[in-house]
């Protein structure tokens, strides 16, 4: 009875289920751990697959016994006999103790191996060292050797392991780029270390994976993998752009400033200048998203500046109402920001 | 269920092992030990926290080895150790139905406990005045929490034993009150056990630079 009933129900649901599976497949390649684009994620998917096979094996055995038992041993109506009372069976019990142990050994050995391999950042450190600092609700990426720092978008060279040093300014967040590698927590007051590697150029989605407040869901970032040449060029451009920006805004030569620059210097620079309190906006025009998740257009940018709380509950950026920045100024400001691109 | 399942000892006039002569007594006795099993993990958590935060965030001059008053701690240790002995003596008196002796030893226990507590209050007050406070650093928070939890246990023990004494002042030793006395004395010993670790781990190790 049990099996038949569930069977019927299943048949009705099966088409929907299968369709759904096909439609969403294994997720999108920028984001899915099932479509790895980096060494870390690949090693992890390998061991996920291995463990899945072990599980399916166990599942199959249990399923066979289960289905057999449920079909074979139902009480027929009118049958009031008492079955044989079996106390146990040592051989059987030994079998189902020993086999799982063996299966677990199969799983444990690569587990230990992969754990150690993933923890080894020696090679990565030689290539590049990047400091990641998580903040409510944005990411700061600093290249200490290169004197460059940026927000929201982490740029790395393709094919190389880069060492990532992680910490947080406020609460715990977690740094996760599913297509490249598993996550590591960013703990306030403590440093963590991992490495990241991308096998092909492209943009990968990053997520904050530790509850950090009302806008935890919106604390997205991107990892952009560039070919080595592009990467080097990017670093150089960033440095020049930063210097140019600093020079211009430090010049205190307000006459040369556009309205946008002026508004920016007066209202925004105090936080956005250093790149420690708020994301650096040096290359804001190149960003794919505003504040990590909004579409990168003028309308959204203006909405954001007017009332960031509405877009990201709990964010540390204050809003700028019309008494502070008029509609016209806002428009100019937005243009100015959207134009802040590397050459 | 039978309250007098165990016969009186003809000499003492009360059952042997009077603290667990009835089922209720036995239940209390076992339950209390299990409670102490739980207290063990409670204090382990506090000790762990303390060890993890030892000297952490403390300013120069306010580290454990700068501030601890070892003479006082030594005296307090002696007081509490002795009170553990007097509490044993009280229980031995109880088992031979010697009410007067039992009361006397318990009162001595109380006095020693009170002296210990006074020492602790003095000590805390002293630290407070030199700047080592509950909120001065993570070390301070962990220190006062651990040692304070122990102090609160001492206080509770004092209240408990004195309530028992007052309530049963005019009564003999019975199968009803004996288990109560007995578990309160177990509690008192346990407090001493915790203190042994406090003076070793917090104070003595704290003096090692």
């Amino acid at each position, binding site marked *: 009875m049990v099996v038949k009933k569930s069977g019927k129900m299943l048949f009705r649901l099966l088409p929907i289920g299968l369709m759904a599976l096909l439609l969403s497949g294994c997720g999108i390649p920028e984001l899915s751990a099932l479509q790895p684009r980096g060494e870390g994620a690949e090693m992890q998917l390998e061991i996920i697959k291995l463990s899945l096979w072990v599980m399916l094996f166990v599942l199959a055995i249990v399923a066979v016994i289960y289905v057999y038992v449920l079909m074979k041993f139902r009480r027929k109506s009118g049958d009031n006999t008492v079955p044989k009372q079996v106390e146990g069976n040592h051989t059987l019990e030994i079998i189902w103790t020993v086999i799982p142990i063996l299966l677990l050994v199969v799983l444990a050995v690569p587990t230990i191996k992969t754990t150690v391999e993933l923890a080894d950042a020696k090679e990565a450190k030689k290539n590049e060292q990047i400091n990641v600092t998580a903040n409510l609700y944005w990411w700061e990426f600093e290249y200490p050797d290169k004197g460059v720092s940026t927000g929201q978008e982490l740029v790395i060279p393709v094919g190389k392991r880069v060492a990532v040093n992680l910490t947080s300014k406020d609460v715990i967040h977690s740094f996760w780029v599913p297509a490249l590698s598993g996550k590591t927590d960013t703990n306030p007051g*403590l440093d963590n270390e991992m490495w990241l590697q991308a096998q092909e150029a492209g943009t990968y989605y990053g997520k904050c994976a530790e509850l950090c407040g009302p806008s935890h869901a919106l604390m997205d970032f991107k990892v952009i993998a560039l070919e080595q040449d592009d990467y080097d060029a990017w670093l150089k451009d960033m440095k020049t752009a930063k210097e140019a920006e600093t020079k211009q805004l430090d010049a205190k030569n307000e006459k040369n400033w556009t309205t946008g620059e002026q508004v920016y210097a007066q209202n925004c620079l105090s936080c956005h200048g250093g790149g420690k309190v708020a994301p650096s906006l040096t290359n804001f025009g190149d960003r794919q998203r505003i504040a990590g998740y909004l579409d990168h257009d003028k309308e959204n940018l203006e909405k954001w500046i007017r009332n960031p709380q509405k877009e990201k509950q709990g964010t540390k950026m204050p809003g700028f109402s019309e008494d502070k920045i008029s509609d016209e100024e806002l428009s100019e400001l937005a243009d100015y920001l959207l134009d802040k691109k590397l050459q | 269920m039978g309250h007098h*399942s*165990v*016969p009186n*000892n*003809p*000499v*003492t006039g009360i059952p*042997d*092992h009077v603290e667990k002569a009835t089922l209720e007594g036995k239940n209390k006795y*076992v339950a209390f*030990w*299990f409670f*102490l*099993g*739980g207290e*063990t*993990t409670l*204090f*382990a*958590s506090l*000790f*762990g*926290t303390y*060890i*993890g935060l030892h000297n952490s965030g403390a300013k120069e001059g306010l580290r454990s080895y700068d501030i601890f008053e*070892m003479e006082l701690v*030594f005296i307090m*240790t*002696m007081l509490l*150790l*002795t009170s*553990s*002995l007097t*509490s*044993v*003596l009280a229980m*031995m008196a109880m088992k*031979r139905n010697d009410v007067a002796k039992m009361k006397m030893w318990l009162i001595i226990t109380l006095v020693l406990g009170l002296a210990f507590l006074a020492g602790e209050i003095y000590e805390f007050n002293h630290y407070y005045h030199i700047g080592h406070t509950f909120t001065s650093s993570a070390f301070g928070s962990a220190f006062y929490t651990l040692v304070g939890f122990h102090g609160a246990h001492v206080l509770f023990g004092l209240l408990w034993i004195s309530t028992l004494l007052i309530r049963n002042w005019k009564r003999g030793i019975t199968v009803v009150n004996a288990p109560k006395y007995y578990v309160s004395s*177990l509690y008192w*010993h*346990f407090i*001493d*056990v915790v203190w*042994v*670790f406090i*003076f*070793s*781990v917090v104070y*003595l*190790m704290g*003096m*090692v*630079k």
Partner: protein
Amino acid sequence: MEKHEPQVTRNQLELEMKADRSREMQLQLISFALMIFLTLIAFGAVMAELMPHWAAGGFLVIMAIVQVYLQLYMFMHMNNKGNTWIKVMMALGIFVALTIVATLRLLIW
């Protein structure tokens, strides 16, 4: 539950109990003396700075464990008959306690 042989006279019983009592008293006093002694050593070693830095922790913990053993087994009579489950639970409690302390000592940074 102890059984009393009927042929034992009251006097004999009384004597026996007295002997028991003084044996017990002796035991407790010895335990106490030991505890004091251990405490003195511990305090002395630290205050006189006799312990090398690296050995102090281990030494103090061993001293403490011996003392606690005395408390539990002498003062608190944990070894009495019928205390099997008590011992089991205390052992488990101590095991969990050690795990907790070891963790908070080693697994934070």
